[in-house]
């Protein structure tokens, strides 16, 4: 983890957003997707962004990932790292095997073949898919594909992981297991002194309460930060524990109040 870059206003943040605004279109048709969003995420912190439809969650991640440009405000990522981005769909390349998919970012970084092979094996073991390197993505289940996508994103060796509803399309059991896996991996990295900062977007409040150190609630049209809460439940957590449920209930109430505002 690089600590060489200091971010103005928050010397310790891994990701810092200050007054980030995103407007689509122009003139009368302009839509404000994000309105002066400011957010600091500490190294190794797990932040969940929660909001109803149209709150610009995905827009925010695209901006942080550098796939889109802001209309105003600043985004700083510590050490100029390239954040890894995961989507709701695995977005694997169907023409490549599982192993070759994971190898793509390593190739793009120009690593030598032997290093790449070793790293691919290691990453696939991390997501328990060591035996599936030669399979094709379509031969795997949805949950397995999403794990391949996670391994491929981790191959960027990035300290910042951006996840855009990554488990939204999975069944409940698979999702629970992947929560456990993600938590294990994230805690492992932090314990090893290689902090992994996660910004996780979801509309599933329970999921947020299960995973997050901190939940950030965004309003819809335009997206603004309207509520923040720390989740003090000890880890490892279970999604069906009363503590997680209590946190979820609090956030759900506020989310409903925000959604209700649009009904008038």
């Amino acid at each position, binding site marked *: 983890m690089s600590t060489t870059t200091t971010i103005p206003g928050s010397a310790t943040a891994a990701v810092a957003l200050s007054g980030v605004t995103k407007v689509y279109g122009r003139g009368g048709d302009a839509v404000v997707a994000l309105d002066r969003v400011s957010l600091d995420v500490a190294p190794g912190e797990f932040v969940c962004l929660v909001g109803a439809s149209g709150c610009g969650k995905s827009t925010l991640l*695209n901006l942080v*990932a550098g*796939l889109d440009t802001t209309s105003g405000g600043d985004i700083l990522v510590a050490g100029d790292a*390239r954040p*890894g*981005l995961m*989507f709701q*769909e695995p*977005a694997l*390349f*169907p*023409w*490549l095997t599982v192993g070759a998919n994971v190898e*793509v*970012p390593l*190739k*793009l*970084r120009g690593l030598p073949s032997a290093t790449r092979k070793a790293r691919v094996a290691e990453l696939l073991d991390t997501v*328990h*898919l060591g035996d599936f390197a030669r399979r*094709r*993505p*379509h*031969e*795997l*289940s949805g*949950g*397995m594909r999403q794990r391949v996508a996670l391994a*491929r*994103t981790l*191959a*960027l060796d990035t300290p910042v992981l951006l996840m855009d509803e990554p488990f939204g399309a999975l069944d409940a*059991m*698979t999702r629970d*297991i992947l929560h*456990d*896996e993600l938590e*294990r991996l994230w805690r492992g990295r932090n314990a090893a002194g290689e902090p992994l900062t996660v910004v996780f977007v979801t509309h599933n409040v329970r999921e947020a309460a299960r995973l997050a150190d901190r939940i950030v609630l965004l309003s819809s049209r335009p997206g603004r930060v309207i509520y923040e809460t720390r989740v003090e439940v000890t880890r490892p957590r279970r999604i069906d524990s009363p503590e997680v449920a209590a946190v979820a209930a609090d956030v759900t109430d506020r989310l409903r109040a925000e959604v209700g505002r649009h009904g008038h």
Partner: protein
Amino acid sequence: MATDTISGLDALEIASQQKVPGRAARLWAATWPKLTALALALAVWQVVVWSGWKPEYALPAPETVARDLWDYATSGALWDGLLITAERAGIGFGAAVVVGLLLGLAVARVKVLRAALGSMITALQTMPSIAWFPLAILLFQLSEQAIFFVVVLGAAPSIANGVIHGVDYVPPLLVRAGRNLGASGLSLYRYVIAPAALPAIVAGLKQGWAFAWRSLMAGELLVVIAKTTSIGVQLTYARELSDAPRVISVMIVILVLGLLVDLLFTKADRAIRRRWGLLDRG
């Protein structure tokens, strides 16, 4: 324990995919309808001959043609002609591929070119290639260049269209994923856009081949160059000598050749689809 749950779930979820039909059974299932269709066609032909609708010298019986085909194949004329025609097909189609790929890529990438040439390419595709020959002959006289000119004009638009179509329909999500993984500019083309466009490009090549082959045959019938005995020229000579069995023999050769190359493209297409998981096994 958690690891056990994961591997258990994985095993359950992908268990239903181990279905292996026998190779011979698959081959037979694919072959017998074709053989039956062929037998039916031959039967119809034979019945028409028996009906006396046309005299034997105009419409010979299948058996007569089969004998002639055998003579043709063993005489060396077939192979000499084949060599010339195959070489022309190779050069002409090769040039069309180069032109088509470059043109398609340029149009797909550059907005101005797309506005200018996009609809022209489609229009060019609807132009029957034989209509180009009068101009080609004026430009290049009765020469191989005239044939190549028409072959390229016939095939390149289809190939270019395949490229344009392929690049246009690359899933945006894959492009975003590729960019996030560190691809940009040329490497984005190499790692994401080109492979994602490959199925459409192969479809374009297949269609391009059909046009190239037709243009080439039209060319060989029209542009008769002295001392060359290409397949098309042999067909013309056979007609001039009223040698009906030979006319049909040459036609069969042309049909089979076109089919064989088409089969190669179909095989490539299926291989890609299988790799991508777009095709059910069996």
